């Protein structure tokens, strides 16, 4: 491509200040939150400020046959926003306005670059909030949440992003603007809003999002229970659900995480605790009081070492402190870690966690676990040190083993981070060639040029891969652990 001419043309669309082509500045865009497996430098980053500018940029890409990658805040953890073989990154951070708040109908319409937490902040003094709360909500954008169908601790009760998205405005790879759904429910036709949510930027660029807002609950109650072993804590999770209680969050941390947190934050988890369970209830005060009593009884029955209940907002923040710092704390006990994102039916948690432990022992390294226990969404952190011969390779192999384990019990290889670049070689473990072909048909209907975030999500083959994606071996393939199909 004639890079200088393209940059000039992009600058004419968005203004010179909003085109990044300097190699030093582009470094910021060479990866997203997945900093440890893949990196790639885009040719240029462009930051449009309106739907019309997005259209013009996309039309330019279409004319010049350039692949492009939509990008929000870059907090994704599977490489979904990494550039592929150069091309253009279309950053949506400047499109961060709240266009409408309709509290009477509990709806809002926002631009994709709006930071997740900003929407809640805009309505919280009027007793409402936006329920999807990915751990990165202080930085991640709502457009990115839509692209990844982001989860978060509270989606146990309130569902992932898709449950809260009612309508979308998109710019397709052809430059056409389409409106999907709207502020009302059940638009006639196929549920393209639902189909688009979680499509990882491969079907188009979101330029507006209509979302549902929820009324803040009357009361919130947060409990922290410690157990000798992860097995007991897992059984407590299943028992709570089987009793008929659906907490708003149920998060678990294992002994490795507890140790890392204790060394750092000195939270004061009891001596000998092998698992900590954080449970949050919300709803009518009378309901959660009764439910908390039941949960206390269950915890005691399964041998809880310690049970704390937050008395006020300050104590609640304290109980959450460990959970929120968990991944960062692991950095203190390992040189590097590989964060996995498998899901299993929650009744399989004890069995699967035992097997994860076996995988760790066999490979002689630590796998720390912090996870959304209520959803069965595991986040094993495979600790390794790439300076040691063969250890990266063994970490990647252990990750693959964990994915297979999740699938063997009926689960999924990703609960909230997506396939991105990281898992494209593993998606065939979950879906047959026919299943994947059906997804490709969807892709073809939206973007027959395959110019929108190419090389992501689908396993690309050497021989008949996506035409616009230059073949680039996956890290796992380079390590000799897997072959492309």
């Amino acid at each position, binding site marked *: 491509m004639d890079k200088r001419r393209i940059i000039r043309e992009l600058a004419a669309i968005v203004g010179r200040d909003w085109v990044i082509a300097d190699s030093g500045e582009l470094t910021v865009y060479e990866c997203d939150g997945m900093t440890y497996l893949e990196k790639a430098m885009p040719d240029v980053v462009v930051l449009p400020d309106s739907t019309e500018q997005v259209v013009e940029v996309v039309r330019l890409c279409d004319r010049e046959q350039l692949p492009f990658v939509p990008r929000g805040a870059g907090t994704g953890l599977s490489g979904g926003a990494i550039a592929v073989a150069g091309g253009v990154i279309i950053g949506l951070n400047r499109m961060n306005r709240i266009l409408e708040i309709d509290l009477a109908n509990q709806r809002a319409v926002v631009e994709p670059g709006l930071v997740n937490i900003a929407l809640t902040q805009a309505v919280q003094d009027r007793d409402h909030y936006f329920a999807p709360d990915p751990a990165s909500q202080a930085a991640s954008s709502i457009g990115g949440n839509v692209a990844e169908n982001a989860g978060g601790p509270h989606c146990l009760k309130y569902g992932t992003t898709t449950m809260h998205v009612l309508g979308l405005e998109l710019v397709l790879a052809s430059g056409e603007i389409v409106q999907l759904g709207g502020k009302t429910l059940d638009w006639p036709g196929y549920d393209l809003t639902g189909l688009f949510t979680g499509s990882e930027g491969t079907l188009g660029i979101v330029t507006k999002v209509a979302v549902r807002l929820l009324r803040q609950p009357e009361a919130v109650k947060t409990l922290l229970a410690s157990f000798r072993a992860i097995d007991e804590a897992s059984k407590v999770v299943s028992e709570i659900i089987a009793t008929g209680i659906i907490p708003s969050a149920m998060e678990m941390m294992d002994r490795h995480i507890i140790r890392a947190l204790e060394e750092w934050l000195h939270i004061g988890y009891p001596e000998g605790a092998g698992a900590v369970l954080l449970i949050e209830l919300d709803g009518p005060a*009378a309901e959660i009081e009764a439910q908390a009593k039941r949960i206390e009884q269950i915890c005691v029955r399964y041998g809880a070492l310690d049970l704390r209940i937050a008395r006020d907002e300050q104590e609640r923040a304290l109980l959450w402190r460990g959970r929120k710092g968990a991944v960062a704390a692991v950095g203190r006990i390992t040189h590097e870690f590989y964060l996995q994102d498998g899901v299993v039916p929650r009744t399989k948690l004890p069995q699967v966690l035992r097997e994860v432990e076996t995988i760790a022992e066999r490979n002689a390294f630590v796998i720390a676990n912090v996870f959304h226990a209520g959803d069965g969404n595991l986040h094993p952190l495979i600790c390794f040190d790439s300076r040691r011969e063969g250890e990266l390779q063994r970490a990647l192999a252990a990750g693959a083993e964990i994915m297979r384990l999740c699938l063997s019990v009926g689960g999924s290889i990703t609960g909230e981070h997506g*396939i991105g670049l990281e898992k494209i070689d593993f*998606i065939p473990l979950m879906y047959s060639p026919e299943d994947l072909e059906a997804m490709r048909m969807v892709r073809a209907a939206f973007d027959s040029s395959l110019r929108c975030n190419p090389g992501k999500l689908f396993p690309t083959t050497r021989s008949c891969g996506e035409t616009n994606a230059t073949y680039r071996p996956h890290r796992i393939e380079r390590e000799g652990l897997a072959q492309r199909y």
Partner: protein
Amino acid sequence: MNSERLEGRLAGIVGADHVLAAESCAPYAVDDRVPEAVIFPGDAQELSEIMKLASSERLSVVPWGSGTKIGFGGIPARVDLVVGLTRLKRIIDHEPGDLTATFQAGMLLREVQASLHTSGQFLPFDPPGYERATIGGILATNSSGPWRHRYGSARDLVIGIRVVHADGTLTKGGAKVVKSVSGYDMNKLYVGSLGTLGIIFEATLRLYPLPTVERTWIALFLTGEAAACALAQILHSTIVCTRVEFLSSVAAQSVGGQSGCVVPAGTVAVALSVGSVPEAVDSQITAIRKLCHGEGAVAGFLVEGSAQDGLWKAICDFPSASGNGRTWVMLKASVLPTQVVGMIHHAETLARNLGLEPVAISEAGCGIVRLYWMDTPGSAEPDPISIATGVEDLRNWIARRGGSLVILSAPPAIKAGVDVWGPVGNALFLMQKLKQQFDAQGLLNPGRFVGGI
């Protein structure tokens, strides 16, 4: 293919006992179009073989659960073969601790519920036609009822799906876990697609625990506006309702009467249920009662136990159990919650001008309204074209306010005069491309979906 040869080939797939010959097919007509054969596969493999045959012979196929929603959609372009799914009626698995279960599509909803109740759980589906509806039919139409207020609709509850495509290919989407972002969310594509992209034969769904106690408060109001004010306050409070319905006067009299409430003519009703632990139910019902009273409710009834079951069943099954006259057209409007009562007023005026009795039942918190335009006693038979025009008028009124209106059922003479679905917006070309990708020959339910898909 002549009909005898077709029957023979179909019998070769499923056995002669599971094929209806041409002369017995009349009960399976769709908008008066009678199929050449009806076939009942016993498993996914047979279903796949049927679609391979249909594909090679270019036979159009209408999937059929129990037929409660067969009135949905436009008049079919062709009906060669009806594929009945009632033999696919097994629970594949149910793990109470995971709150998930996998069902075959032909299973009756009431059998699903009976089975789940033994574990203290339920599937929060309560669409119109509850008693006879199948899981597959509910999913294909994304049909919903009062429980939607708390639990969402089918599109929110399906976590895994298996379908057969037009060419016989069997595929799946999702998994048996409540949270998965592996690949596209194909569940969303098939749910509500009226069988035009594939036939759903199995689905994994999210379940919920039965509440310890559930009680319902019915409040009567002299005007829709007063009811709307009470509803707005309740919806914006911290009260967590399980079901929230607004019933226009005829519906209030009909279904209220069935649950033992005295509903004077001309009053409208709101019915609100709360499900939780007993102390939380009592305190919230008290709060609801006070809010309704404050907005001028003229009467109120606490309904529980079997009366409560009867009330909600009557709401779902309206008008079948009510003894009301013939319904000429059944509509579904989707508007913003604040627009519900105003829209119902407008729809009532239009219907009365046509000499019809208007009835409205609304999931008011969701903005979903079911409208029935029914016979009034002793009146002359209405003209289908006038009804079609009335529907078009109402649709325009709603569209100007950002909502949509579809016909759920109507005689073919009315359907011929007005688009069943109405305008779809500027994404129709994407839907047509999807149809082209999934069913290039146009065999699945041709002509019944939006834009003639």
